C-alpha cells in the first residue's frame, strides 16, 4: 500500500471545518496559506497568540527589511524557498524592546554570521540579538515562532472562521 501525504501550499490548499456549539472566536480557526495569500510581502500576521507568545505567518516575496528580536525566534518554511541572511548588530543598533521582532534602522553594522537557504519543512533559527533578512525569488510562506512585538499584525476577524 502506498500513501499520499497532503501538504498545503499557496496555490493549493483545502481548509478544514469547525462545527461547534460554542463561540468560534475562542478557537480562532484560520489557515496559514489563506492568510499568506491575503497578506502583503513581509507582513507578520499573527495566527496564534498565547499571552506574550505568538506564531506569525509571513509571505516572503522579494527582500525584507532587517529584523531583530531580544529572544530566539524560529521560522518554519511551509511553501517555496526562502533565504535567511544573518549579521551581528553594532551596540547602537541592538534591540532595546522587550518582545517580538522589530525592524533594524538601516543596514546592520556588525559581522556577517551566515546564511540559510530553506525549503518546505525546514526550520531555521533566528537567533536572539542578531539581525536577519529574508528574501525569496517567488512567493513563499513561513511560520515564525516568536513573541508578539512591534511588527505583529492582528486581524483576527478577517482571518478566522466565525460562522
Amino acid at each position, binding site marked *: 500500500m502506498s500513501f499520499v501525504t497532503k501538504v498545503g501550499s499557496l496555490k493549493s490548499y483545502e481548509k478544514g471545518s469547525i462545527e*461547534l456549539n460554542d463561540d468560534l472566536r475562542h478557537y480562532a480557526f484560520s489557515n496559514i496559506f489563506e492568510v499568506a495569500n491575503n497578506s502583503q510581502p513581509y507582513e507578520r500576521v499573527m495566527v496564534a497568540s498565547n499571552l506574550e507568545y505568538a*506564531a506569525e505567518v509571513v509571505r516572503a516575496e522579494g527582500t525584507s527589511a532587517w529584523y531583530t528580536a531580544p529572544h530566539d525566534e524560529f521560522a518554519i518554511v511551509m511553501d517555496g524557498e526562502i533565504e535567511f541572511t544573518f549579521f551581528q548588530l553594532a551596540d547602537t543598533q541592538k534591540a532595546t524592546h522587550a518582545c517580538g521582532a522589530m525592524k533594524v534602522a538601516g543596514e546592520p553594522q556588525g559581522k556577517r*554570521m551566515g546564511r540559510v537557504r530553506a525549503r518546505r*519543512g*525546514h526550520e531555521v533559527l533566528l537567533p536572539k540579538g542578531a539581525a536577519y533578512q529574508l528574501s525569496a525569488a517567488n512567493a513563499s510562506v513561513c511560520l515564525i515562532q516568536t513573541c508578539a512585538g512591534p511588527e505583529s499584525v492582528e486581524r483576527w476577524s478577517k482571518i478566522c472562521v466565525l460562522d
Partner: protein
Amino acid sequence: MSIASVQLIASAPDPVLGYKKFQFGSFTFERDMYFVHVGWPKGKHTIEVDRFLRAMVRDIGWGFFYGWIFFDDVFGTQNHYGTVDIYAGTYSKGHRDTGVDFLETFNTDDVRVAFETISINWINEGYDPLRAPMETGSPLGAKTKDAAGPLIRGFEPARRMMGLPGDTSPRSDASGHPINRAFADLSYDKPDIEIEPGFEDQVHAFNLFDHIARADVTWNPSFTSITRACICCVTSEEHMLPVIHGNDRNEWFIQLTDEIQWNIQDKNTGNPRGRIVMKSGDVCAMPADIRHQGFSPKRSMLMVLENGTPGLEEKYAKGELEPFPITASRW
C-alpha cells in the same frame, strides 16, 4: 503541598494469566486477557487493555503533561506539578450524583514509579503501545515475556533548538529511525547552510518534516524549539489519541500535513461541543475549558505550541485569565 509517600503493592503473578495485581493508595489495578479493572473504595471501572496501556505509557512519558489526562470519561490523572491526582468519576455526573466518585493525590514520583511498574508487568514482548496499531502486535491474552527496550521514548526535549551543538539531535537513519511508510512519498532535502567561523551555535537549520517523518511513536511529541517559555512540540499522529486531554491553559494546534479530526467536549462535564477538522495549514486554538481527542485516519504531522510559564494553571483556575486566547477587544 506535602504528601506522604505511597508505594505500589504488587501481588504474586496470577496463576492462570501470569499478570500481577496492584494496589496504589486506595486504588487497585487488575488486568485480564482483554480488560483492565480499576477499583476504589466505592466503585470499580473497566477499560479495554490496549487503550489503558496506550494512555498510561504516554501519561508517564509526558510527565503527566498539562492538566487532565482522561484515560476515558471516568478514569484519569490531573497534574499539579509536584503532585498528581488520580481520579475515578470525579468529572462524570453519574458517578458524582451517586456518590461513588473518588480522587486521591500522590507525589508525582510515586505515581510515575507505580505506573511504570504496572506497565512493565502488563506489556508483553511484541506489543508497543507507543506505535500505531497497524505497526505493533496485540496486548491481548495471557502474559508471555516482558517487552525489551525502553518503556517510554521520543520525548527528550530540546533545550534551545534541536540539532544545535550540545542539544538534542533530530532522528536519522543512523539513530535507527527510517522514514515511516506513511511519509515515504515526500522528499527530504537538507537546508543549505553557510556559517561564518564562530557562529556555529547561532546559525542553524534542519529538516523538521524529516524528523517527524522518522518518528517510531505516535501521539508523543518532541520539543524542537523554545522561545522563552513557548515550546514548539511536533508529533506524528496515526489512529486515535489514546487519551482525552483537558488542558489547564490555552494551547495551539498547527496541522502541518494531512488531516486530524478533533472531538471537543466541555472540560468539566464531558458534554460534547462538536468537532473540528484540521487540514494542512490550518491553525486552531484549544481553549482551557475543553477536552479534546484527535483521530488521524492517515499518519499526519502536527505542531503544538504550548506556553510553559510556571503557575499559569493557577491563573486560569482562579479566573484571572480568560479560558480562550484572543480576548474580546482584539476582534
